[in-house]
């Protein structure tokens, strides 16, 4: 990429918290702006353009219009980066996929359900090629800076593939299970510095699963620590319903 990379930022079905986290780089924002040209970002600026080098995309795909728009973005960009759990693996939106879609629509909109077209919530990668991921809910800011820096320097970002437990041990945190709580750290992909356990909360699995998770073992641990099998699976599916599709007994 010669000169400054042209960057565009887009959002699909999600809470826009990942984009907000980009505006929350108060200490680095001016440096970031010095290294790229932001050419399109609806949440923060006017205007649309025809092509860009890097597209950061937040949110999952959940309407027919989303599918058209993501295909268009893929055509216009050289590199596509999925931002946050909704874009990377479907995120919390995926929970609705665990139930029949018509039942879900009936519950929320009643007789007006056909006014608003909907699909199961999909990860970007199930429709287009995604080049890199910035995981988390909201996206992990330190990981965004790593991926961003690598791309601007023309290097290949490296995605971690070990569990949150490893990071948690390195931070010398007391194991969450020792405190009488449950935790999804053993099957969740690291890269967040075990942020939630460091603040006394359990890992909810927002960064997605490691590539070869022992789900059966995880279920056993959750049940040993007091959850019913159904409750254990609900916790596992909070962020990862799409990845676990077909695995649930």
């Amino acid at each position, binding site marked *: 990429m010669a000169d400054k990379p042209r960057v565009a930022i887009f959002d*699909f*079905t*999600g*809470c*826009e*918290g*990942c*984009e*907000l*986290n980009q*505006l*929350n780089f*108060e*200490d680095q*924002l*001016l440096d970031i*702006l010095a290294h790229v040209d*932001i050419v399109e*970002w*609806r*949440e*923060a*600026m*006017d*205007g649309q353009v025809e092509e860009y080098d890097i597209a950061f995309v937040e949110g999952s795909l*959940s*309407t027919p*219009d*989303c599918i058209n728009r993501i295909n268009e973005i893929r055509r216009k960009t050289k590199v596509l980066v999925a931002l946050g759990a909704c874009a990377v693996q479907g*995120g*919390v*939106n995926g*929970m*609705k996929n665990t*139930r029949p879609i018509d*039942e*879900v*629509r009936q*519950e*929320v*909109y*009643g007789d*007006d359900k056909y*006014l*608003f077209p*909907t699909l199961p*919530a999909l990860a970007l990668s199930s429709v287009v090629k995604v080049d890199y991921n910035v995981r988390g*809910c*909201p996206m992990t800011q330190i990981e965004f800076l790593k991926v961003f820096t690598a791309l601007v320097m023309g290097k290949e970002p490296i995605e971690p593939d070990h569990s949150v437990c490893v990071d948690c041990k390195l931070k010398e945190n007391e194991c969450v299970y020792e405190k009488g709580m449950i935790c999804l750290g053993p099957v969740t992909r690291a890269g967040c510095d075990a*942020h*939630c356990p*460091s*603040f*006394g*909360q359990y890992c*909810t699995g927002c960064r997605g699963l490691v590539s070869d998770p022992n789900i059966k073992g995880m279920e056993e641990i959750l049940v040993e620590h007091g959850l019913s099998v159904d*409750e254990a699976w*609900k*916790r596992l599916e*909070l962020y990862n319903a799409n990845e676990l599709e077909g695995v649930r007994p």
Partner: protein
Amino acid sequence: MSTATGTNLNIKVKHLTRVEGHGNIVVNMKEGVLEKAQLEIVEAPRYFEAMLKGRSFHEAAIITSRICGICSLGHQITSLKATEQALGLEISEQTVQLRKLLIHGATMQSNLLHAYFLAAPDFLKVGSVFPLVETHPEVVVRALRMKRLANDIGDVVSGRAVHPITPVPGGFTRIPTAGELKELKRRLAEDMYPDLLATVETLKALAGAIPQFERETEYISLRNDDDYAMYDGDICSTDTGRVPDSEYLKMSNEFVVPHSTSKHAKVNRSSFMVGALARWNNNHDRLGELAHTAADALGLKPGCCNPYMNTIAQVVEAAHCAIDSIAIIDKLLEDGLKDEQPNQEPTQYGTGIGATEVPRGILYHEYSYDRAGRVTAANCIIPTGQNLANIDDDMKKLVPEIIDKSKEEITLHLEMLVRAYDPCISCSVHMLDVDFIE
């Protein structure tokens, strides 16, 4: 309806920029008669109610905070209040104070983000904040410094400003240290205070760009006897006075309209307004000196009916939040921080309501739980949804008044109107009210 007989006007702004979420502005005037003036909400629905069903009370706030990144703290606190009432979980005074501090941080961050990054570019006739980095660097640096401090309140007290970690049913998973709170207080006094005064000066110079438009409407916000109501209070209308929050459904009647995936709302008139301007109109007597100094300097008066002044009311509130944050930290330090564990032993399983003032207005959550502590019904009413009918009514009055201006100017006035409400469109469609009755 219009003096300009015979005028034809067609405006369609698709996916309005510098607002949170996806909305279109549509205006049609045919031969001087206004046929349509409305904000269409086209955000994709997310079906949160269906996601909540059967979930543990431990997860309800984690899930509902994901309705909206910008309002995540507000959803979380409101959700926790509803859950605690439903399950009979008592919370400590320290928990209340820490939550109030978090609400101040989130309100400051959201109000300042809107004023500096989303609204100010219109006043300076640029398309975004980015050109201002070149032309007004000191203003951008100041805005970032203020936002950083507001976010740091969230980072220190709740672990993360977006989708907070530590607030859980019954309390907090981690209590901030006295040193952390003292440092926040120091920065509020030494940095935020002068920055707020400078913000008022900057806005004063731009105030001429705020359109003069008035439409009297009903203003609804929380109100209590103790403070500028944010964390709790009765529901107060400028038309009919105070009622307890248990009557929230009556004070937020919702109805489906075909042009919006978010429902609309009305109470005593065809529409009402919530948010900073409504809070100002109901509770200006509860604000302190700095907030009133800011309001005087910026021409914000009690009983203000100009919706464009909502942005000014947000800045006035930011001043209040900064000063009151210092007072809360002083109280917490004086009482001594206690390393409390959250109280998570339910004493009942029923229905509970939470009503909180979040940056864009009153947010209501209501949940019912079964005896296993699982959600059986949920209802959330979102501030932006409450404002949508009011925005449409404003447009219907505004367009004929400015019909002699160019189409570009009319469009800009309409875009600025919608932005003044600081609409959070993701919120407004992500959680439509519904009870899942089995």
